[in-house]
């Protein structure tokens, strides 16, 4: 290295070395090429486990049935049987431990997701009874007349006169 011409190169090599050293310190140990190769699998392996640990909020009707057999029986033969409990009752979270976690959605907004009339004859929507939300008792909640677990029945909790007035 007697030749002064190489001095900038020494500095360059020092910088490159520095970056490689920093790299060993900053990069997580499990970062590397995983199952899907370098193109699609270049990542930190432990991140997969982090995503796996993400808490489940909707526990499905199977869990509900364990304790609420009566409610399950109430809905099982109704046209609404395919609607998951948690769609209206709210996600389970850690429901048995924290009973206040569930909040029932009785709003019109929930019902008209399916029952707002849309003039689409060939669509599956046409198979569902539909109403015009702006004209069909706009002042009332749907549950005041219709029993949500079985829409063919009227809701025993309410009287028809309440809606009309």
């Amino acid at each position, binding site marked *: *290295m007697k030749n002064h011409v190489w001095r900038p190169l020494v500095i360059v090599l020092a910088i490159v*070395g520095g970056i*490689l*050293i920093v*790299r*060993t310190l900053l990069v997580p140990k499990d*970062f*590397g*090429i*995983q*199952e*899907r*190769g*370098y*193109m*699609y*699998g*270049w*990542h*930190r392996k432990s*991140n*997969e486990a982090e*995503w*796996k*640990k*993400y*808490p*489940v*909020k*909707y526990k*499905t009707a199977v869990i509900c049935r364990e304790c609420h057999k009566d409610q399950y029986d109430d809905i099982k033969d109704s046209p*609404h049987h*395919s*609607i*998951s409990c*948690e*769609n209206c009752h709210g*996600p389970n979270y850690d429901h048995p431990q924290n009973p206040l976690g569930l909040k029932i959605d009785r709003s019109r*907004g929930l019902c*008209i*997701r*399916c029952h*707002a009339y*849309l*003039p*689409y*004859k*060939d*669509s*599956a*929507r046409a198979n*569902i009874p539909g109403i015009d*939300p702006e004209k069909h008792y706009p002042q009332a909640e749907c549950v005041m007349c219709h029993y949500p677990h079985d829409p063919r029945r009227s809701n025993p909790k309410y009287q028809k006169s309440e809606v009309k007035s």
Partner: protein
Amino acid sequence: MMNRREFCKNAMIMAGGIMIPLTALEVFNPSRLHAEKDGKGKVRWVFLVDLHKCVGCGFCVKACKIENDVDWDANVTRTWVERYVVTKGMPGEEPKTYIDSPKGCRDGFITQKIDQASMGLKDIKPEQISKAFFVPKLCNHCENPPCVQVCPVGATYQTQEGVVLVDRTWCIGCGYCVMGCPYGVRYFHPELHVAEKCTLCYHRLCRGMKTACVDACPFGARRVGNIRDPEDPVTKIITTEQVNVLKEEFGTKPQVFYLGYSMEVK
């Protein structure tokens, strides 16, 4: 005879050489550069959407937002439902297709008016409509995900089961993956400021459950299955019936299959 200066120099070079482990050069190992295709795992998740069954209720979008802590009021969503309304056309006028997805169908389709964004609402008379249908969308978890290919730091990747995930601690937020996705499924997390996308409810699939959107759908329009299991009902439908995928021309090999696909679908 080595003088002090030379000794120092040599010592530093040696130390530097030892400090740089060979793992730092792992990237340059040519045998591992190529994508390892035809994975060896027993599981490869795929998704099946039946367009004949979807009624546009948006329960899937609601469940997804809650399950995955996607901000309820933010105008982004991991999954959404599009409405396609095709008009009959008049004499001398071709049929037109109107598409919308207000709030990603978070609250369902509750009005006949088509949302044209800043162009206002478009009212189409019922007698004008020749056909209408709903198209649920979500990440296609492509076999060749372009979003993963373009990530400069390895913050997004595909698991062995084919699920494309984002490492929220490593993403630099350059947005290249957002631009690289032809399906528009990616966005920036409003609070974490990293790329965000559908995880195919990886946490649920790992526990033997289905995705939140599948469980929330009252009509069975959404299903998830394992394409490497020939007995899986989803696999059977995909292999025996006429299914389609979105934007096949990009060569991404999307893994969300559609039954009842129509050419209007964008």
